[in-house]
């Protein structure tokens, strides 16, 4: 995984969010505009240029108790304003494995 520090150099190509895994249980979370973490991508703060991305990331990194390994991830925004993950990795993180899991037993 790319470390946040390396990512600071990266310019973002389009709308992006900051995502991480929640510390206590590991689930996928997104940084919100309210300086909190949410499991809902729809609540993620959207950044559109590198300055904004950097600022959101820095603020997210500072909340180390809340979530770990934050990084900038691309998203797409549909005509209806819905936020969808910008690549397969993020899609899998959001919607889960693509393979079906054994029945819960």
């Amino acid at each position, binding site marked *: *995984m790319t470390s946040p520090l390396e990512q600071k150099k990266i310019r973002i190509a389009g709308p992006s969010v900051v995502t991480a*895994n929640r*510390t*206590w*249980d*590991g*689930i*996928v979370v997104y940084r919100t505009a309210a300086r909190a973490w949410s499991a809902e991508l729809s609540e993620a703060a959207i950044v559109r240029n590198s300055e904004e991305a950097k600022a959101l990331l820095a603020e997210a990194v500072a909340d*180390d*108790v809340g979530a*770990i*390994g934050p990084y900038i991830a691309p998203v797409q925004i549909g005509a209806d304003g819905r936020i969808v993950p910008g*690549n*397969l*990795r993020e899609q*899998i*993180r959001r919607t*889960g*494995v*693509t*393979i079906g*899991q*054994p*029945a*819960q*037993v």
Partner: protein
Amino acid sequence: MYAYDEIDRTLVNERVSEFRDQVKRRLSGELTEDEFKILRLQNGVYLQLHAYMFRVAIPYGTLATNQLRALAHVARKYDRGYGHFTTRQNIQFNWIKLAELPDALEDLAKVGIHAMQTSGNNMRNVTSDQWAGVAPGEIEDPRIWSELIRQHTTLHPEFSFLPRKFKIAITASDHDRAAIKIHDIGLRLIRNEKGETGFEVLVGGGLGRTPFIAKTIKHFVHGRDILSYIEAILRVYNQYGRRDNIYKARIKILVHELGIEKFSREVEEEWQQIRNSSLQIDDEVIEDIRSRFTYPAYEKLPHMPDELRQAAADPDFEAWRKNSVAPHKVQGYSIVTISLKPTGGPPGDATAKQMDALADLADQYSFGEIRVGHEQNLALPHVAKRDLPALWKALDKLGLATPNVNLITDIIACPGLDYCSLANARSIPIAQELTRRFANHELANLIGRLHINISGCINACGHHHVGHIGILGVEKNGEEVYQITIGGRADENATLGTLIGPGVKFDEVADVVEDVVEAYLALRERPEELFMDTVKRLGVEPFKERVYATR
């Protein structure tokens, strides 16, 4: 089975309470993730795409039924009801909550299971043949030596801060089921002309970004000298190993750069200085370990019991028996491999229900013992032949009697992009599709022994380099692309596969494999010529032609 002593138990318990405290401090913010990371890795906890992943060691692949039940319990209570058996005699849980991990560790510690040596730059758990102690013709149970090395290296300072992680595997049979040639150190237990037990020592194997097959560094090291010899290797490695570059820090790179001759000279020099030290192993020490491995009280049973003769009329039973049942060193007994590769299923996954049921079956039919192999399958090591028909029926009900061991659908696959944060592409869905394509048992049998290995990135956890057909997922312009190699193998004749051409897309992989297989069926000289032999005879060209002619 192996009886742990008090020291081990105390150590494991101390680790649990230490980790409980560390987790508490992490959750309160007293420890940062940076500080905590090394601590969690020491306890087998990784961060994956969806959650924390928890890796538990199954030393030399031997499990007692209460241990398997404890794993089932962890899967059920702390995870989503299943676990994933890996190629390193580990089991991984994919959805563990950090806050609950200390409880899970504690539950496992009660049955002597821990997660030490599953991660970090240390000596990883020493792996061995899953048929250890029961394979006909083996020199000696290799786990005795695995255990000796484990005791010596666990938490030994010299082994805890290596330039990189370090893996040892041991085999004691002619047929290498432990893949020793792709380990940092591979040990083959042998006997010299004088009848003394010792090891052929191989060094510098490994896959990943720069794959190497291990080379023999010494043809015979006496058993009593094995610790000093390993220590000498590690000292040379520690002295030269590149800590500055994690890609170059593995011993395989050092051996490659120094050359095996220079490397072995340096080891020899080092060894001469320490071989007569306290590292020399007393016979009593070995005897003590030997005495802790207990074997069942086997009965005197006929070679061909009536039950087996009668069941032979059932073609389904026969298909399974021929595929999954292997000879045992004791007459009247068999080793039964349990395929964790059902059609359409993720390779290596077992549900809590299956684990519990299997524990019951092992109690009933295998003297309470289960084995875990590096092919992501399990085994029951001591099944009386007369019980085979009943066992088969029970396994079949659990979905654990797919007769595909060593066939094309017995696929080794890493978790890939469905779970792994390092992945470039998915592995499991490729495996699932291939198991559907080749689900027909007659077809798979006609093809014969053929191993497919799939990795979702260059770290090669799925051992793609040594697959007869190897599939490596990479990313190209945001898309999953797969590179196909053929002709690799992981056994005593280990070789790296050869790339057959440009990468192919996700949807095309199964078609390409079908083409390769069709080409093989058309090209083989006779049905007994195995895929890898055809590739060896003809090279990759005819396969390449077949695959790319229409693409």
